[in-house]
């Protein structure tokens, strides 16, 4: 759509003309000279029933009003927010109200209580684990929603010629570089994932990096090849196991915590790779979920199925 002068000049020209009040939008959309044939057909399908010129006049009027109102709203909002920012505690201030007993305990006792050297990982996966549980379910919800919208198995939406003109796997440079790059990215992703409690990173970043590696693989060697290795069933199973494990593990810890029962999970020796109790397995579970989510986003957008 972008390299071909099909739609885009249309946007600009309608926009400028319309701003000067010279254009009747309905007319321009219908005139075959401006728009590609497909869009003309679809506009014809939704044939307006009332008087067109009166209607476009109405649209134009309401658009002017909308522009004025939106500008006023934006300016008002920006001013309000700037005034609020001027009234906030200073940036970088060590005595700000946010540096209170909560942050202090996270930093000072975090390593001892959760076993995680990385305070942020300890905070999101142990102290405030319910938020993070919700967050992984945001990903799950959105992958289901994208499946609903993009899955090609639905009625009347087959894209006919998806044949690619470029096959990247035949390109020597791309293939050669990717042969080195993809394993490197994957190893880096796994490193981030497993070291989430020791160094910056964790489930979300590691999973995103892994997902990006898989996406590059699928891009270069083709989606068929990728889906042979990573089948839809595999993805479903991994998501089911990771999220199920996450739910069960966390509900054990929530239940014992709330009922003041003894939990068998110990923080271990801080700094070791096998430490920090549940944080390492949870990081792995979250990482798998994020990785599968990113990869399935790619596959759904690319070819409409996993």
């Amino acid at each position, binding site marked *: 759509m972008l390299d071909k002068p099909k739609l885009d000049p249309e946007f600009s020209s309608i926009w400028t003309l319309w701003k000067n009040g010279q254009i009747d939008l309905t007319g321009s959309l219908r005139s075959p000279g401006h728009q590609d044939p497909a869009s003309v057909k679809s506009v014809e399908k939704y044939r307006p029933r009332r008087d067109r010129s009166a209607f476009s006049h109405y649209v134009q009027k309401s658009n002017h009003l909308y522009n004025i109102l939106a500008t006023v709203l934006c300016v008002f909002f920006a001013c309000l927010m700037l005034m609020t920012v*001027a009234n906030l505690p200073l940036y970088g201030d060590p005595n700000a109200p946010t540096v209170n007993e909560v942050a202090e305990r996270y930093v000072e006792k975090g390593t001892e209580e959760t076993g995680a050297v990385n305070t942020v990982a300890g905070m999101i996966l142990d102290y405030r684990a319910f938020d993070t549980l919700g967050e992984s379910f945001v990903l799950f919800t959105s992958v289901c929603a994208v499946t609903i919208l993009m899955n090609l198995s639905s009625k009347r939406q087959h894209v006919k010629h998806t044949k690619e003109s470029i096959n990247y796997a035949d390109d020597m440079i791309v293939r050669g570089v990717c042969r080195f790059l993809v394993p490197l990215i994957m190893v880096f992703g796994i490193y981030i994932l497993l070291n989430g409690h020791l160094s910056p990173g964790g489930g979300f970043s590691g999973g995103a990096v892994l997902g990006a590696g898989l996406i590059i693989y699928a891009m270069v060697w083709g989606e068929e090849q990728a889906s042979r290795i990573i089948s839809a069933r595999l993805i479903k199973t991994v998501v089911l196991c990771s999220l199920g494990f996450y739910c069960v593990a966390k509900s054990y810890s929530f239940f014992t915590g709330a009922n003041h029962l003894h939990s068998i999970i110990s923080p271990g020796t801080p700094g070791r790779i096998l430490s920090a109790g549940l944080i390492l397995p949870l990081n792995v579970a979250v990482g798998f979920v994020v990785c599968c989510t990113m990869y399935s986003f790619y596959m759904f957008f690319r070819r409409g199925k996993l």
Partner: protein
Amino acid sequence: MTALLTYCTNLFNNYEEVVAVILFSIGFCILLFSRNLIKKVVGLDIMDTGVFLLLASRGYIEGRSVPIIVDGVTSMENYINPIPAGLVLTGIVVSVSVSALMLSLTVRIYRTYRTLDVDALYMMMSVSKGGKR
């Protein structure tokens, strides 16, 4: 006059937040004024990043370092506030899932209506009113 001066000093000191607010407003403007759905989604993303910048800059403390306890130094004096970083991490993931959903809606709408111009879409919506379901 002094009040105004204090305001300006505060604004100057909170420059990171000011930029965050400006980014949010730019994103909001793109959302309001752009007629292309894809650009609206970009506007939403910019809005979100503005919010995250605002949140993360609230946790920063001048001259302190990232809260990863390596040398056994556990005093709060050396580290920044870890809470905003954790919250922003949540926010970034929410933002990417929302934009994936918006983009898939965009594709479906283009498939049905062959246009991404919201005004044209709105027009089709209004003119096909009153008929069958």
